[in-house]
């Protein structure tokens, strides 16, 4: 199934909202959306995962790539709104120690 992806850039912050199941079929879509923001060198990218009902390692890989590319230009990529099963993937792969994870987009805007 394809993802629904929207983004809004305000000032130095972009919120990228992903809706759907992120797997090997759909993760290229998420990657393209993140790469678009990376190309623009947006200082802070908040990936809103509140509507992501499933994520596999290809989704995680996409986020790692985005994080590393943002770091190259001193930007930030943070994630927000993880459901329990998605958070479990982060914890299983110990990426909860690497990513800044926020309860929701508002918390990410304020604290991230």
């Amino acid at each position, binding site marked *: *199934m394809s993802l629904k992806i929207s983004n809004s850039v305000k000032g130095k912050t972009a919120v990228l909202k992903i809706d759907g*199941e992120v*797997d*090997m*079929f759909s993760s290229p879509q998420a990657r393209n959306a993140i790469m678009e923001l990376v190309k623009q060198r947006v200082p802070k990218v908040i990936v809103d995962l509140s509507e992501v009902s*499933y994520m*596999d*390692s*290809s989704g*995680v*890989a*996409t986020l*790692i*790539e985005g994080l*590393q590319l943002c770091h190259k230009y001193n930007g930030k990529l943070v994630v927000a709104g993880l459901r*329990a*099963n998605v958070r*479990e*993937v982060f914890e*299983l*792969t*110990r990426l909860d120690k*690497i990513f800044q994870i926020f309860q929701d987009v508002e918390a990410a805007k304020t604290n991230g």
Partner: protein
Amino acid sequence: MTKIIVLNLTSDPPLLSVMRAAVSKVCEIAGFDAMDTSKIILAIDEACSNIIRHAYKGKGGQSIRITCKIKPTKLEFILEDEGEPADLKKIKSRPLDEIRPGGLGVYIITSVMDKVKYADGLEAGNRLVMQKSIPKDKK
């Protein structure tokens, strides 16, 4: 008594969501809770993705057979494909302190499942057997 469900799908990534829905039901019948179910789905999904990516090199329309066996004390999945046999010496998870995209699938599979065994010496294709014990209070 062992209950058996056999899923046949082709190596087309859009079908993974169908597989996940079916595996979810299998886990429910076996008595796993929601969190264990989501982990098991993830492990089977990673294994299927590896078949598509490595055994079939991304080629669609090829056979993947998943046999699910609900036994009294464990849930067993047997994944069979007719693709390029994997070099078993090269199947390993990467260290988690290497922060880079990719290479997490095998780590996830071995972390989630209690037993993971790739069949050796097949004439063609691959066969992967994975088992997860059913917690006693859930049987």
